[in-house]
């Protein structure tokens, strides 16, 4: 046990030692994404706003809800979903993209999914900030309270994204079909998670409601939505379910790295 803890600690120190390397890769990824575009980083603001506007026009009418309530609700849902989708799908390529570095030097492999999650996190933070400003403008909530109660959710999402990116990266390196399967899976899950609709707007849908109750992503969405929309701390039950999902992702990530990290170089 003590030996394992020492190994874990030295692994974490290795990641920290190379912080300038992976941070510079993240910066480079962001520069590449926007360097030749007209709006540059402004696209990170325009994209979620445009999506929210479209969904507002269609679904606010469909679900018979006030757009002032619906706009921040859907913006937050899309922000979390976009972050998870980006980390999972781009995480699939995290190791293959880094092949030249992996073949050059012995480094902790977890830094490459970290690069993915930080890139996706940058956009998520911008969209989250936008949602907070939107709610403040529409409802006049206390921004300081909202930001404080969002901190645990952001930390949880960051680690969840990182662990999922590790697992997907290891899987995809060995099974080339992983990304395609996940793309379809995420598409299905998008409709089975309360991103565009509130569970309360589905009376009589007993099976779907029961699924939503047990879907851990509902809890993950709630720990982000509740502080912003209601201005209160998330429910303990939602924290519990989110932490359970995080724990499962952490165990899977550690296990897959322990089993496969050193042999990944043969498959990229």
């Amino acid at each position, binding site marked *: 046990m003590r030996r394992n803890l020492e190994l874990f600690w030295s692994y974490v120190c290795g990641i920290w030692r190379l912080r300038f390397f992976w941070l510079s890769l993240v910066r480079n990824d962001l*520069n590449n994404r926007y360097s030749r575009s007209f709006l540059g980083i402004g696209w990170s603001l325009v994209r979620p706003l445009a999506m929210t506007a479209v969904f507002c026009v269609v679904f606010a009418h469909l679900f018979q809800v006030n757009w002032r309530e619906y706009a921040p609700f859907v913006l937050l849902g899309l922000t979390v979903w976009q972050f998870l989708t980006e980390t999972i799908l781009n995480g699939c390529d995290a190791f293959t993209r880094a092949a030249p570095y992996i073949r050059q030097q012995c*480094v902790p492999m977890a830094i490459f999914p970290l690069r993915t999650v930080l890139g996706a996190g940058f956009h998520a933070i911008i969209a989250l900030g936008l949602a907070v400003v939107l709610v403040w403008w529409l409802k006049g909530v206390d921004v300081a309270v909202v930001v404080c109660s969002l901190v645990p959710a952001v930390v949880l999402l960051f680690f969840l994204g990182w662990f999922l990116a590790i697992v997907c990266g290891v899987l995809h390196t060995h099974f080339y079909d992983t990304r395609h399967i996940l793309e379809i899976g995420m598409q299905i899950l998008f409709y089975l998670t309360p991103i565009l609709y509130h569970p309360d707007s589905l009376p009589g849908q007993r099976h779907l409601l029961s699924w939503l109750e047990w879907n851990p992503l509902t809890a993950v969405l709630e720990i982000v939505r509740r502080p912003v929309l209601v201005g209160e701390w998330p429910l303990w039950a939602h924290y519990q379910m989110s932490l359970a999902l995080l724990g499962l992702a952490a165990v899977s990530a550690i296990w897959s790295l322990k089993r496969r990290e050193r042999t990944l170089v043969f498959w990229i």
Partner: protein
Amino acid sequence: MACIELDNVVLDYPVRPHRRLTLKDFVLQRVFGREPGPSVVRALNGISLRIEEGERVGVIGRNGAGKSTLLRTIAGIYPVARGSRRVDGRVCSLFDIAVGFEPEATGWQNIHYRAYLQGESPKIVQAKLRAIGDFSELGEFLELPLRCYSTGMTLRLAFSVATSTEPEILLLDEFFSTGDLGFQKKGELRMRDFLDRARIVLMVGHNLTFLEKFCDRVLWLHQGWIRADGPTAQVLSEYRHAMTAAVAA
């Protein structure tokens, strides 16, 4: 004290069609028990060696003999299947020097990335940034994205960054002076200084004259095992005879 010690090291390199297992292969293998044909190449076969501080070791052998694999195993990039590997000292590995650059980043930015990959901090990189830029003789090109560089210019930049580190154990794979004739002369001097700074140097190469100049010991690898290990002159002489005989046959 820097030291490298390998004891009966075996390395198996898995080879599969398309390099990865597809879902179809997986199903065939697990459900129908049909082997989709993975094969393993034994790249290193019972390698035992000890390299002490101060040694300059060359590694020679024909293509596919396991030279690059040996270096990558010592660097910890490849895991050993059997045997043990002990390396005391900070490893600086320079393989495929032109690979791993970011094409959209400028020359200056790429200098940072390379140095950070080797564990340097911004303070240290900043201190030697100007010297690296000057040595590369790329001038204003350093402000441009790397995709605008010719292959020679990229190699020049890579060489300048790589040889600016302070290595303890230096592993070089076909990594010698590069660029036009003027730069080659300058590069050779820089290389000599670079090799002198390292405590242990292990270099793979086909340029036997270069190895004669820089190494005091040579390992001759053949099909994953050590065919000869000894003083440079002796091993190179044996190698040249064997190669001449092989060509004549």
